[in-house]
């Protein structure tokens, strides 16, 4: 089998590349510069080391890394059968990437859009091969999550759906079928939870800790919505809820002003050391 192209070496791209390599696939991981790619390989090594501690199998980092090559620019993906794209949820960026991929890849390459919110049919429309464009919403951390959302666009062919389902099965993933609709199942639900949780804090109804405690202790979720927002990144959550709001123009998705203020203040969550919680001391505090 040809290597699989993975575009974007951020959190999701790293998870997808690791998952593919762990399941015996060769991978070409692409991003815009060597520095990002080097840090992606470091992250993959760390994730592999942590696998058993997080309930996964024993994973040899050296074996996984041996299956992953890296490249700057999509030209390296000319001959791959599948590309899994994982760039940020920014429409202009997606447009640019898919336009380049369309020129770089052979005609029967399947383009898999890893997105949590962007309509697949719209991505298909950029490409000269809308029948080979399909959405897969991978969950984080990718190697640990047993299921994904599988989203054909209006023009996606049955063959593309089956080829993608086969690749996902080979990655150990069960595909949940969802029609093309902004936010699919997962983000329509999760972002309303996170946004409304932010409103509870914004309105002074409850503290972030109290909101998360209800989710953990009363609903039995492993994490509350605000610690989840900190983990995902407050800016990413805001971008996604904004995409959903702009798409449906329904006020139930209006972004909480607190999210906007936090992003303006640089309180972008765990990665910034401060979000709904403070992470600067190494430990978390409200």
């Amino acid at each position: 089998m040809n290597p699989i192209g993975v575009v974007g070496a951020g959190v999701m791209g790293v998870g997808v590349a690791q998952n593919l390599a762990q399941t015996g696939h060769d991978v070409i991981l692409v991003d815009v510069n060597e520095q990002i790619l080097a840090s992606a390989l470091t992250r993959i090594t760390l994730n592999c080391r942590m696998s058993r501690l997080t309930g996964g199998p024993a994973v040899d980092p050296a074996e996984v890394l041996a299956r992953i090559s890296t490249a700057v620019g999509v030209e390296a993906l000319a001959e791959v059968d599948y590309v899994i794209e994982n760039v940020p949820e920014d429409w202009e960026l997606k447009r640019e990437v898919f336009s380049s991929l369309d020129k770089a890849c052979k005609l029967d390459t399947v383009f898999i859009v890893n997105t949590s919110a962007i309509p697949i049919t719209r991505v298909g429309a950029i490409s000269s091969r809308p029948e080979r464009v399909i959405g897969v919403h991978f969950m984080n951390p990718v190697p640990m999550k047993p299921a994904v959302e599988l989203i054909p666009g209006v023009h996606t062919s049955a063959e593309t759906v089956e080829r993608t389902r086969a690749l996902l099965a080979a990655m150990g993933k069960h595909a949940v079928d969802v029609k093309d609709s902004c936010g699919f199942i997962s983000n329509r639900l999760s972002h309303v939870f996170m946004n409304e949780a932010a409103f509870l804090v914004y309105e002074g109804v409850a503290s972030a800790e109290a909101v998360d405690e209800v989710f953990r202790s009363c609903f039995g979720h492993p994490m509350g919505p605000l610690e989840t927002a900190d983990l995902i990144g407050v800016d990413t959550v805001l971008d996604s809820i904004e995409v959903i709001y702009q798409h449906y123009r329904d006020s139930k998705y209006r972004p909480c002003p607190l999210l906007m203020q936090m992003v303006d203040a640089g309180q972008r969550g765990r990665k910034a050391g401060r979000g709904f919680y403070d992470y600067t001391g190494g430990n978390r505090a409200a």
Partner: protein
Amino acid sequence: MSVFEQDQILAFIRDRYPQAEIEATDDIFGLGYVNSLFAMELVMFVEKTFGVAIPNDELRIENFQTAAVMAELVQRLAPSPAGAGI
């Protein structure tokens, strides 16, 4: 077992879950306190605080189930009485 390491590890865990009454021999994995992120934070905390490098084959749940066994792991990896880098 070192009370010194154990207390610091326990303080780190309790700080994260201030509302839970976690003891040194409580199984934090079995009690559901450890998600993938907290597991990584635990490993990084232990490595940084005590100046040890945990080999890949020691990174398994049995070595991180309780503050007490984590302290034993630190002792095995760095038998000096005081941790480094504190």
